[in-house]
């Protein structure tokens, strides 16, 4: 990894507020959704983590060794991304600068 690469990323991200401040924005303007779409059997072996705020959106699903699959989704400002269906884990992160439109969700099969 070159210094230029890391410096470039650092420069564009250096204006970010800290995690504590970001957390304060969790409930304004966006949504998070997740295990509500999992069956009771799935919920027993699946876990998820979601973060969505004006700063960025992030979803992470974990299905343990349950023969279930997950698909993570993140939307932030003008960008969105699906992880696609994966075994065991899936992650999605969307970031488009400060944005009032955001959501993060995990779906299980």
């Amino acid at each position: 990894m070159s210094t230029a690469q890391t410096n470039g990323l650092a420069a564009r991200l250096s204006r970010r507020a800290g995690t504590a401040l970001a957390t304060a924005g969790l409930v304004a303007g966006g949504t998070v959704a997740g295990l509500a779409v999992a069956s009771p059997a799935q919920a027993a072996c699946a876990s998820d983590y979601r973060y969505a705020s004006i700063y960025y959106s992030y979803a992470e699903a974990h299905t343990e060794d349950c023969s279930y699959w997950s698909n993570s989704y993140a939307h932030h400002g003008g960008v969105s991304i699906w992880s696609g269906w994966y075994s065991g884990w899936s992650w999605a992160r969307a970031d488009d600068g400060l944005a009032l439109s955001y959501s993060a969700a995990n779906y299980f099969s």
Partner: protein
Amino acid sequence: MKVTRALVVALAVLAFGGSACASESTREALPPQGSGAQMKPLVDQFRDGRAQAKSDFERSVLDRAIATGKIAPADYEEAFSRYRQCIEDAGYQETYTKLPNGIYRVTAPSDVADQDAYGNTVRTCAIDRGLASIEALYRTQIDNPDLLADPRLVAVRCLVKAGLVPTDYTADKLTTFLRGDMSSADFDPMKPEAQKCLTAAGIAVQIGPSERKGGG
């Protein structure tokens, strides 16, 4: 990463709007994550998928996979085509990009008013048309031939090999980087080489124009 009791608690606390429902006994029975532990053999995973199959199409694909030891690319294409038709029938206009590994990346419509309804449609179409299981198993077959139980190791090994992170980079560090504000600048996730490594591990990252311009 070794999933410790502390991490389980942290997940439960942080998973707002939902729940982290895994019991500790379930987790403690699992092999430590990040250790290089392996999934069950691929054919056994095909059999598990076959047992849960929702359609004759899904059963036929997985029967062939059990017999041959692998899912055929044509079967994945057919599963994706069926999913795509279902989404179109539901009135959504997704866009699709075929990745170098042959798997399609789905981009959501830009004008979705109800994200929950759209997400549930995606899930229903993927399950009913057989894509969810076939895609997940096909990805494992293609991108995780060592069957690593913790796919983050797939990404870490790839990132190290590409020279994007130091050789002592860990799955824990990757998780911290992805969950945080990325101010640590471990690597640029939008570099094509990094995207390839992340995608192979089930990690999708999209940084938009506003962020890349340093705006926002």
